[in-house]
């Protein structure tokens, strides 16, 4: 009897509780679903906005290297004035320059922080490198124009002397005026450095202490220890970090727009000339797009950028696994 009277109210309460519990669960699940919805909506809406242009010109006709909105007319579909090959080229080249600088530097910095620096400096040094990621893109761009480009002048001019070499000489044709794929790439390198370093740091931290001590115990120098016990097992982590850095470089907009010179007309001859990237042309022309199929073609560019960045990030994540939250 007493058991019954005790149980009854509890039962009623728990069924009410169960109902609100279910409601809460549903709400939380709905919030989780927004992530999936946002990704699908991005794909669908970008495709929808670019559809008129894609069907008018045909998707394959965008793969040439001349972007001349003023030549577009409502009726003619040939030739397609909206070629995007030079933007793909610009995006690849700026990112390549960025990675060539950022990856070795990040590896060095991460090795230094995790294995060589005094223990009490590890935290502060990591925070300082992370701070590089906190500085806004527009500030990097502005700084790049006024501080970095003048400093890069001698380097750029020095690189033009490489133009005599066969094959790679093409990349270094002068003259170098500052605004260029090269300058944009250097700023991109600085912007990608924190994320690549942060992942490398985590990867290097997972190297087993026992193996490091074993290497030192048999007489390896510190550098040899890094070479035999830390670097080999970190290879895939470094590759994953580089790919995620690359994803960042592909999508970076404002700093690149301020530094690359925005030459949309053709594929630039080499790295020291002005160019344009997929994001930079969107940022530059979006709000002033007034030619036939102009805005729709910019959405084609945006859709292409989305597809590339999804692919790159998918592959990068697969390799790195999960990266912790403070690496934004």
């Amino acid at each position, binding site marked *: 009897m007493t058991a019954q009277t005790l149980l009854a109210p*509890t039962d009623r309460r728990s069924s009410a*509780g169960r109902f*609100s*519990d279910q409601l*809460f*669960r549903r*709400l*939380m699940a709905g*919030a*989780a679903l*927004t*992530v*999936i919805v*946002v*990704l699908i*909506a*991005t794909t669908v*809406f*970008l495709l929808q*906005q670019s559809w008129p242009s894609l069907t008018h010109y045909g998707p394959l006709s965008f793969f040439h290297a001349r972007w001349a909105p003023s030549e577009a007319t409502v009726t003619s579909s040939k030739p397609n004035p909206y070629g995007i090959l030079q933007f793909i080229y610009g995006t690849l080249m700026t990112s390549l320059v960025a990675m060539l600088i950022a990856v070795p*530097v990040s590896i*060095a*910095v991460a090795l*230094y922080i995790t294995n060589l*620096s005094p223990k009490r400096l590890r935290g502060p*040094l990591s925070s*300082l490198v992370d*701070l590089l990621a*906190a500085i*806004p*893109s527009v*500030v990097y761009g*502005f700084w790049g*124009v*006024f*501080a970095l480009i003048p400093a890069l002048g001698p380097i750029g001019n020095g690189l033009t002397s490489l133009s005599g070499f066969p094959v790679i000489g093409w990349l270094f044709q002068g003259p170098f005026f500052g605004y260029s794929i090269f300058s944009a790439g250097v700023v991109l390198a600085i912007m990608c450095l924190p994320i690549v370093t942060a992942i490398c740091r985590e990867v290097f931290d997972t190297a087993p202490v026992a193996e490091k001590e074993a290497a030192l115990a*048999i*007489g*390896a*120098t*510190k550098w*040899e*220890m890094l070479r*035999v016990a830390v670097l080999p097992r970190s290879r895939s982590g470094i590759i994953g970090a580089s790919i995620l850095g690359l994803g960042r470089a592909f*999508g*970076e*907009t404002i700093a690149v727009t301020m530094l690359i010179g925005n030459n949309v007309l053709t594929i630039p001859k080499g790295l020291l000339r002005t160019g344009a990237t997929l*994001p930079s042309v*969107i*940022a530059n022309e*979006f*709000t002033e797009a007034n030619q036939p199929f102009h805005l729709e073609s910019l*959405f084609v560019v*945006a859709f292409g950028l*989305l597809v590339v*960045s999804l692919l790159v*990030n998918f592959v*990068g994540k697969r390799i790195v696994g999960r*990266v912790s*939250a403070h690496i934004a």
Partner: protein
Amino acid sequence: MLDQQLEGPLSSVTGQFPGARRRELTNLFMHGLLLLVMIATVGVLVWVLAYVAGQGLKYLGPEFLTQTPPGNPSEPGGGFLNGIIGSVITTGIATVLSVPAGAAAAIYLVEYGGRLARVTRFLTDILVGVPTIVTGALVYAVWVVLFGFSGIAGGIALALVMLPLVIRSTDEMLRLVPRDLREASLALGVTKARTILVIVLPTASSGIITGVMLAFARAMGETAPLLLTALGNDLFIELNPTKRMSTLSLQIFGNAITGFKAAQARAWAGALTLVVLVLLFTVAARLIARRSSVSRGG
């Protein structure tokens, strides 16, 4: 021959120490090189901050913080008050939209789990990597096309930038809350929903706040998505979020790319203001994280 085969880490145990001097030099050289790269990296940070501070301090002052830009951008004087207000409004809208949704999503990931949670967690990481200009284009397509350029559109775009960051940091923090706490609460007959709201969230709160502040700082510095959504308005203070609106970042961008010295001086002062705000939030977030009741082992 034998010596050559044994070179590398093993060679020292042979007692001969072949090439010991060379190995020692290599070690010193690499040590020095890594130190040099480390110094150079910190040097770049110092260079950027010092340059922005040096240029910004030339004009930053009460006038800059309390006035709007002159109608003619080539004229000296004026300030970015409208942009600062616009930044507060758009980032504020973004925070209001993204934090509850992000926290709720993270609760689902950690407290309920399952297939949807696994997929969402993976896609959150992918969403972080979507270029923000693409996010801007999305908001243009779903919102601006219907309602025009506005502060709200800018806020929505920034909310989408913040959302995956908030989910990811909250996710991490919730996972650090000890299982015992949840079990103790459930054992007392408290429902799961109440356990999460009353026990789990407060325990992780300072960590969650840290993540939100970092995401907020990130959103405040964004320019690209706002170009396509809030558009900018360099003339007057706009408090109505349904109208096009300027932000600090947009004003820096707009003034920096003009050829006018006066506009660039304002842009530098704006850049310094933005950097100071962003760094304040970042550093404050770190300090809160340090006092957190649950923490990442390191």
